């Protein structure tokens, strides 16, 4: 009966929003089930790694992978899926560019572990116990020992294409059901786009589909950059023109400008447009060009930029791990995760 395309769905360091976006297809979900066979989906089916290993190479039509690569386990699993699949798709911002968890690349993994297990105000950990790779558990009542294992995180979070070859990308945090639906149509039509393409979304910037676009001046010029903590955007007026850091101009469209409809600036979750190699670099280029001062007004320029303390979290909110630098310089391998402990 299986003449249908076979689809595998796997998640790495994801939050589950991508899975929810899939469920949000609502009644269209039933059409998906009609059109494809789901052959592997660890969150939903009792298929396991061994089952995938047993499949002939290239027998999965499409593997959709969401979440960034945070563990060696993820790395192994996606390599296996690559081998077994004709097409691999990075689904969602985390898989495509590392996503918000990629902001962890600003710190050493050890610092993150220390914060969580030693420093936060609720923690009571006088013996400085940390998660360990191999744990030997004594079970006195049965006079035996058992072994447990924990996977070790990678020193930095990686987007999918730094680990395996990726054919296509479906953008968004998460992709909207419509974008996913469009991508499915494109992929199942057999009329495949060129490799490396971003499918399901628009090929133009978000401003193009934003309802406030008509209020955007021909040439945007601002004297200051505003943060929404202490400023209220005027409704129905281009947020950029008001000085808010809206990522619209450097972000791919396709979401119908949902955040802006919510009267908040775009944060860039649909990622880069074709021809852009570093999203944050492009954003710097844009925000540098709209600031309305000449170089002799050094003080004013400095003040305007200083008004935004966290540029990195703003311009690389979803794509730090995929940026040209990819993580803070001088990141060290973790030492805090010990090999073995007996309890």
């Amino acid at each position: 009966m299986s003449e249908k395309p076979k689809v595998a769905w796997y998640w790495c360091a994801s939050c589950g929003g991508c899975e929810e976006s899939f469920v949000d297809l609502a009644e269209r979900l039933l059409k998906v089930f009609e059109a494809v066979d789901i052959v592997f989906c660890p969150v939903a089916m009792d298929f396991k790694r061994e089952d995938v290993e047993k499949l002939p190479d290239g027998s999965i039509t499409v593997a959709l992978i969401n979440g960034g690569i945070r563990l060696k386990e993820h790395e192994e699993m996606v390599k296996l899926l690559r081998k077994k699949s004709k097409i691999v798709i990075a689904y969602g911002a985390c898989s495509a560019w590392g996503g918000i968890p990629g902001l962890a690349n600003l710190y050493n993994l050890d610092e993150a572990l220390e914060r969580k297990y030693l420093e936060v105000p609720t923690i009571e950990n006088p013996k400085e116990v940390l998660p360990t790779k191999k744990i030997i558990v004594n079970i006195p009542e049965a006079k035996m020992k058992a072994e447990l294992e924990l996977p070790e995180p990678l020193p930095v979070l990686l987007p999918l294409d730094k680990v395996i070859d990726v054919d296509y990308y479906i953008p968004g945090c998460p992709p909207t059901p419509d974008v996913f639906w469009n991508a499915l149509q494109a992929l199942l039509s057999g009329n495949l786009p060129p490799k490396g393409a971003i499918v399901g979304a628009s090929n133009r910037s978000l401003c193009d589909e934003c309802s406030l676009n008509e209020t955007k001046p021909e040439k945007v010029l601002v004297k200051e950059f505003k943060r929404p903590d202490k400023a209220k955007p005027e409704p129905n007026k281009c947020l950029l023109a008001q000085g808010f850091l809206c990522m619209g101009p450097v972000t791919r469209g396709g979401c119908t400008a949902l955040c802006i409809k919510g009267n908040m600036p775009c944060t860039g979750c649909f990622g880069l447009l074709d021809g852009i190699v570093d999203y944050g670099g492009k954003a710097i280029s844009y925000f540098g060009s709209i600031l309305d001062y000449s170089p002799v007004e050094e003080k004013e320029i400095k003040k305007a930029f200083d008004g935004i303390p966290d540029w990195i979290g703003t311009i690389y909110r979803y794509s730090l791990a995929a940026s040209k630098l990819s993580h803070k310089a001088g990141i060290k391998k973790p030492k805090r995760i010990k090999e073995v402990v007996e309890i």
Partner: protein
Amino acid sequence: MSDSKGEFEPKIVVYACNWCTYAATDLAGTSRMSYPPNVRIIRVMCSGRVDPQFVLQAFADGADGVIVAGCHPPADCHYIEGNYKAYRRFELFRKLLETMGIEQERFRLEWISAAEASRWVQVVNEMVAQLKKLGPLKPNLEVRE
């Protein structure tokens, strides 16, 4: 890169504006000035054409330092305000370098007119000396033990 004595030789990528700095480098050559061979010069039409992405790409591809050079503000720019844009962009770009743990000395934005060959030589000399002190960038961009 290192020379025959095994001393570290930094690689520097230069984006030089066609109308001023590129001419200055030419002038340095025709005037028989000597300066270290560590620079690779890329001619661009204007410093305002230099996207911060280019600089990031150069670092990612192994440059130890990058120079973007253009015409003196306020009035030298062939395209009226390309250099203004470059100035503002790279002012912001420095913040990126800072957060990402890359030393400020690895990036320079310089205004060098077509007549300032000696200024060009001075900038290259200074930067090579500074980068020799700092050492190579690449190991810092990789995860270390």
